[in-house]
């Protein structure tokens, strides 16, 4: 419980940093920290496989890609703040949070309790079984999607083929 609150607080702080840091590299590093914390939250939810994949894929690959692009382009680090959009964005976010809070507080605490799960929940065997038995078609479609993404990225980013 204490662990959850620490993780939650830290991840909120870092995600705020993502949005409010003016330097994109700082934003990216804050996002890495957030992703790492969320991965640890996954671990507390008995999903170690997904948790480590989260670190591997998000923190290890995608965010490096972001940093790579930031370093390549080296765009102007600072940007002007826009009061109107700033106000709109934070208002919308606040409204969203309040709404969610209202919805969630409607749930009786008893029903929110998490029951114990079966042995081997979240293990690679079980995940693999579900993935390759019930979700074969989506899995294949996802691989096609990745292929499309690779081809698209190469075509877009390469100056001449």
């Amino acid at each position: 419980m204490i662990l959850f609150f620490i993780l939650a607080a830290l991840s909120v702080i870092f995600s705020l940093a993502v949005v409010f840091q003016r330097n994109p590299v700082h934003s990216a590093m804050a996002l890495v920290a957030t992703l790492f914390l969320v991965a640890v939250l996954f671990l507390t939810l008995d999903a170690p496989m997904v948790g480590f994949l989260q670190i591997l894929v998000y923190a290890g690959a995608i965010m490096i890609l972001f940093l790579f692009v930031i370093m390549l382009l080296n765009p102007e680090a600072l940007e002007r703040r826009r009061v109107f959009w700033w106000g709109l964005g934070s208002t919308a976010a606040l409204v969203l949070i309040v709404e969610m809070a209202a919805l969630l507080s409607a749930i009786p605490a008893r029903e929110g309790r998490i029951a114990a799960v079966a042995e081997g929940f979240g293990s690679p065997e079980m995940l693999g079984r579900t993935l390759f038995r019930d979700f074969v078609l989506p899995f294949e479609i996802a691989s096609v999607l990745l292929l499309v993404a690779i081809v698209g990225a190469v075509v877009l980013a390469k100056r001449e083929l």
Partner: protein
Amino acid sequence: MIVELGIVAAKALLVIFMVLNLAGVMGWVERKGSALIQDRIGANRASVLGFAGLGLVNTLLADPIKFLMKEDFIPPRGDRLLHTLAPCLALFPALVTFAVIPFGDVLMVGEREINLQVANINVGILYIFAMASLSVYGIVIGAWASNNKFSLLGGVRGSAQMISYEVAMGLSVIGVLMVYGTLEPQQIVRSQGELLGGWLPAWGILLQPLAFVLFFTAAVAETKRIPFDLPEGESEIVAGFHTEYSGGKFLMFFAGEFAEMVTSAGLMTTLFFGGWQVPYLVRDGFHFPWGTIWLLPHLAVVLLQVGMFTLKVVFFCWLFVLLRWTLPRFRYDQVMRLGWKMLLPLALLNVMVTGVVIVVLHNGS
């Protein structure tokens, strides 16, 4: 509960102590080894009472002291926070990865079984790769925060190289995982204790030779050592990502590199060379295939196993050193070509062939 925690803490401390010390020793071995190879004397100032051999002890202390006494320089236009953070990010993954590498079988103290592994995670291999993927940040952030173009070039090279070889590394391990059917390092090592045809230990190198070659290449690339030391490339881009580092922060990069070396040596041992397995040694002693049985006390068995593991790790570290002083450095495009056009297809082929063989064997039996 307290005892359990204490045991885990003791194991973690032991492992960190060993890894860091081994890293320090490797620093000395690298100097003396290179001197041996190049007909030089090598580090000759750190001898104790005239014995150069004892200089090892001295170097372990002298090195950090020297580094810590130096000025800690932050580039005036660099990013202070990230500049300080980067060396920590470089050292941290190298140290935590060792947590799931088993350095021995179980140790029985009274009725209590102590698993000689800091953390037994059922997706241990995945954990290793997750942590290894974080080690890029040290380079990228260090390079960026230095605000120096040579560093930037090193950082760009480093991130591209490490991501590319991570892919090849991961795919080459999949063959091993398929053979042993588990993601737990301890389980993998146990499976390697079995005997093939009654006499040959089922080590990974025998079952997956191609995977070992690929993994070894990728591991050298991941540790950023010659011939893959492009992120540093000392004659091209000065010192690459750590051009602007000095003092204690440089020490962390330095130690991080050696710790990474020790960790990948440990990983190679675990996956391909039977980890702590001594051939024909089981829990109660040696059972040779020709029928001789030599019983040993439990503690001796455990010590033998831990010793064997250390020996294997040291051997691979020495191999890294040997490689470093033999080969020239690649060029950026050559590294990329090797990673994507050679290692990756070969690793995929390895996975495919392994899959086919496993299916055939299953259907046959």
